[in-house]
């Protein structure tokens, strides 16, 4: 008889996490927990102003501080050809300043000392003099005539534009917009700068062994293999002599994909000193200098038929890229996958342009819990859909429904191929659970009593699991992932994946995939990841890609192993392979189902009793190049009440319906959604990293860039619909980012809806009570970048 898959921890089991055992005992292994013999500590000195030439830099007192071993400046880095480094978008970025400071918080110098207290003392002893330059803090200023050229280091750069990009059918789009029978709706929205801010900041220990020439890098990174290759190329070190170990990550959310300047200097320092060098970033350093996300200005026009059907969209996006264009994104796409916008709606024509701008702000453009600018496109999409519904006088749920894609596969306006989905079913379930029509009645009644209730809907499908290698690469490295499976003689297995967990529970769920394919109990499978010497090459964890790529590779390698096990089974059962059938965990003779051998029997035979001509052992590997993205569909609906006197607002109820295809571990899927939705709520509610006119970063600490607590965060009530991905081996679509991508619009839409009768169409995030109040009182849209007094 077949095994009970749920009981052995296979697909669909809400298996408790194996990772927890160490974390709940305080035995996690984060970078700062490692202590290597002879280890030194590095601290980084940062620029206090946003745009300035350095006129003098005196490190002599730092050198004289007892306990200091090394002070690295831009000049010294240049001597080692490391003053500049390439970015993920084929730009260059200063490692340490050699010419001028381009953003507040930029790295000036690094000090290596016996302990971090001494390194801080020595940083304080460095004196730097600056000759300030006019700061540029937004694209409008960057484009102004006579604006200083921020990237005057680049030959031929005569303005502050860092890229332009377009996609779509300009001619036909313009033709549709010329149709006088269509109603044109337009809107401008700003997605403010945000930061992934995992609670653990960036960190490295670089350990260079001068005897062996081996460089071991302990790094809190989501992409250890890419980092190894990048270090090999930038530092011109032999790749096989570099080992990157990414132990437990205290969160990542995209912030731990890039290479940061202090990493480069820590590596240089450990090579120069031939001692391990540890650098632990502080929170302000993390928020002020490491990769930001978003900061995009959006303009959209839609041409809409009387029945609500959108006929064409015209989009322009301006991005604020900071001092260096270092966005993490596929090489082909200058604004990531932003053009997945309106993907779940069947819109005949569209044309989109985008332009990037250098400013005196920290560089970045990481995909913060998002597949490369998708979070931005989905906020804009769903905010704009609500505005369109208001303007054409249609119910906002109905308006979405009229435009939904219903037949799959479907080629979107901007060229993506949707794989599957049942959007109506998801929306209907969501509307039912929030009692949509009942709420609309209550909203009407409440308004007549002076109370302000609002309901916001966000429906979206996003492409996950970048890539396929035809279209997607990062600095030339194609986007796929990998798995290696080794079944030991006693039937216990080790799975090694190219991806890496940042808290999602890979050690738990990836075993479940093997269990599903082979019937080996999940508890008998150890999952390893995050060590380049011991795992196959993979692109890492981001873009909700682990399950779509490494998860698929895990299924595929399990099938390869099963195919070999079948040969062993035939040998053990003394029948031909054609006569052997498989059920979970067991091969049996087709004509005599009681005659069978388990997968464990086959594993033992692979080492003890293999047939002639069959290679011993039971192991294999797989590299999985996805044929397409996977397309989950999500419906988020929330109701809020706004205080008419103060603009403060509270979430009354939140409903989520997610179709992420097959759920490997429902408990973990739901928890991923909780986390993403909390981040969405944070951005909509209070999280803010803004800049004053001098380029001072306001929000470079947890006092101002706020993580919501258990008190503010609402409860999230979740439901599921399952349409398996037709091309993923086990039908999964990915889930990690959906809540963060689709959630923000639901909250903002609800707040705007509460005061829409006053004529309000937009409040840029975060919807602080002051902004809501101003929108109510001035009955106009409140822009997200209020002019701030200079310091």
């Amino acid at each position, binding site marked *: 008889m077949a095994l009970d898959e749920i009981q052995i921890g296979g697909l669909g089991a809400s298996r408790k996490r194996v990772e927890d055992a160490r974390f709940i005992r305080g035995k996690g292994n984060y970078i700062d927990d490692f202590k290597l013999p002879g280890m030194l500590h590095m601290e980084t000195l940062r620029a*206090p102003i946003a745009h300035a030439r350095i006129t003098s830099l005196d490190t002599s007192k730092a050198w004289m501080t007892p306990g200091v071993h090394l002070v690295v400046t831009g000049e010294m880095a240049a001597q080692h050809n490391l003053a500049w480094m390439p970015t993920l978008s084929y730009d260059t970025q200063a490692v340490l300043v050699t010419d001028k400071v381009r953003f507040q918080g930029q790295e000036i110098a690094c000090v290596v000392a016996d302990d971090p207290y001494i390194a801080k003392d020595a940083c304080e002893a460095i004196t730097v003099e600056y000759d300030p330059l006019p700061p540029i803090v937004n694209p409008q200023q960057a484009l102004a005539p006579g604006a200083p050229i921020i990237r005057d280091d680049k030959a031929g750069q005569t303005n502050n534009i860092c890229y332009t990009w377009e996609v779509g059918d300009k001619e036909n789009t313009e033709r549709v917009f010329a149709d006088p029978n269509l109603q044109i709706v337009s809107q401008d929205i700003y997605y403010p700068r945000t930061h992934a801010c995992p609670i653990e900041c960036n960190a490295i220990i670089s350990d260079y062994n001068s005897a062996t020439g081996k460089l071991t890098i302990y790094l809190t990174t989501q992409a250890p293999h890419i980092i190894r290759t990048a270090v090999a190329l930038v530092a011109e070190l032999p790749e096989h002599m570099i080992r990157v170990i990414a132990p437990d990550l205290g969160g990542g959310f995209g912030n731990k994909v890039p290479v940061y300047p202090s990493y480069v200097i820590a590596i240089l320092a450990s090579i120069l000193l031939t001692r391990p060098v540890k650098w632990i970033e502080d929170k302000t350093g993390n928020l002020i200098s490491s990769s930001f996300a978003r900061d995009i200005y959006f303009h959209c026009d839609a041409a809409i038929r009387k029945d609500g059907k959108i006929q064409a969209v015209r989009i322009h996006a301006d991005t604020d890229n900071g001092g260096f264009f270092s966005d993490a994104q596929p090489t082909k796409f200058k604004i990531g996958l932003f053009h997945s916008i309106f993907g779940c709606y069947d819109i005949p024509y569209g044309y989109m342009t985008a332009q990037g701008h250098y400013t005196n702000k920290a560089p970045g453009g990481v995909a913060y819990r998002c597949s490369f600018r998708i979070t931005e496109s989905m906020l804009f999409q769903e905010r704009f859909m609500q505005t369109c519904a208001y303007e054409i006088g249609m119910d906002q749920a109905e308006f979405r429904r009229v435009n939904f894609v219903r037949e799959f596969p479907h080629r979107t306006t901007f060229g993506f191929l949707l794989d599957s989905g049942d959007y109506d079913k998801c929306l209907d379930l969501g509307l039912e659970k929030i009692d949509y029509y009942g709420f609309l009645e209550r909203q009407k009644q409440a308004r007549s009593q002076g109370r302000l209730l609002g309901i916001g809907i966000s429906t979206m499908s996003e492409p996950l699991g970048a890539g396929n290698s035809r279209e997607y690469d990062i600095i030339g490295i194609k986007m796929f992932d990998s798995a290696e499976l080794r079944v030991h003689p006693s039937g216990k297995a080790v799975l090694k994946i190219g991806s890496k967990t940042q808290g999602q529970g890979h050690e738990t769920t990836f075993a479940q995939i093997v269990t599903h394919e082979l019937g080996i109990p999940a508890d008998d499978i150890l999952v390893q990841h995050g060590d380049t010497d011991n795992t196959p090459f993979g692109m890492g964890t981001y873009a909700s890609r682990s399950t779509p790529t490494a998860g698929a590779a895990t299924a595929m390698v399990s099938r390869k192993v099963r195919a070999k096990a079948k040969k062993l089974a035939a040998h053990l059962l003394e029948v031909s392979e054609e006569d052997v059938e498989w059920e979970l965990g067991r091969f049996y003779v087709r004509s005599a189902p009681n005659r069978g051998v388990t997968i464990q029997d086959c594993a033992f035979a692979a080492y003890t009793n293999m047939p002639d001509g069959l290679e011993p052992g039971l192991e294999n590997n797989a590299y999985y190049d996805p044929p397409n993205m996977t397309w989950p569909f999500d419906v988020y609906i929330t109701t809020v009440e706004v205080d008419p006197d103060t603009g403060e607002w509270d979430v009354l109820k939140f409903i989520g319906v997610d179709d992420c295809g097959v759920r490997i571990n429902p408990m973990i899927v739901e928890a991923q959604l909780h986390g993403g939705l909390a981040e969405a709520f944070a951005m909509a509610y209070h999280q803010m990293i803004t800049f004053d006119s001098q380029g001072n970063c306001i929000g470079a*600490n947890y006092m101002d860039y706020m993580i919501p607590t258990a008190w503010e965060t609402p409860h999230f009530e979740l439901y599921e619909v399952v349409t398996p991905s037709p091309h993923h081996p086990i039908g999964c679509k990915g889930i990690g980012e959906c809540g963060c991508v689709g959630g923000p619009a639901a909250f903002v839409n609800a707040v705007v809806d509460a005061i829409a009768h006053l004529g309000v169409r937009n409040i840029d995030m975060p919807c602080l009570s002051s902004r809501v109040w101003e929108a109510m009182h001035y009955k106009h849209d409140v822009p997200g970048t209020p002019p701030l007094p200079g310091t």
Partner: protein
Amino acid sequence: MAAPNRSGTLTAAKEVRLYPSRFHYEAPRTIDEACQMMAYYRDDAKVLSGGMSLIPLMKLRFASPGTIVDINNIEGLDYIEEAGGYLRIGALARNRAIVRSDLVRSRHPLMSSACPTISDPVVRNRGTLVGNCCHSDPQGDWVSVMMCLGGEIVARSVDGERVIPIEQFTTGPFSNSLQSHEIAVEARIPGSTNYGEYHKIERKVGDFATVAVGVALNIAGGSVSHCGIALTGVAPSNLKCYDAERAVMGGTLNEGTIEAAARAASAAASPRSDHRGSEEYKRTMVEVFVRRSLRAAAGIRAA
């Protein structure tokens, strides 16, 4: 309370160091010993009580005192008691204890309303009322509460004891009128009030106030015998609204007096536009909250 970075630019503008500079450490066992130490070290020393403001400042190296006189080992300074017509709160009474004190609640409901909005539950476990007043952060909540209630700070030194009314104690942002050898050992609040509410707009638990308004009243037979109104976050320092208080003192609470008080408080405020909200918003919120509190006190339902 944490670092004084209302604008956020303080920490952003300087290179942050989360390790304090070196200092000399003293841990006196008695208050007399502590006073002698302060008399010796004077300006070079800082008194450490809850540390929830001072230690963050030292980590960021905004403060680098040569000597720390840690008074946490002094027995008997953690009292919350009623004596001589005063509610007396010792220098080591933690906010945690104030939140939980029935005595505080029965004497001055405003204090019990304000205390849970101060920082977060874990910080309240260590932070103190007296330390918060000494820190004189213009965003600090306790000074406003003390202003509403006519509170005083008791300072001790080798020269003896003196009592400083709160309005004379706080002299500006991060400055107080303690002499360099004095230690604030007690906050005392006279009498009792039978109504009090602290309204605070904060973006999250632990945030400083965008606007906060404290109102405390003693109402007997419809007549207001005590009225204290003070504001946080809308002026260079905590602000006691004398005009607003006068508008309701001695009379009854009605729509007319309530409006007059709300407008007077709003007029007294001098908020700054910043990333938390505009000047106009903050000023209006002062009015909204004074009105709400007084209406609630009068049992008037919102229109």
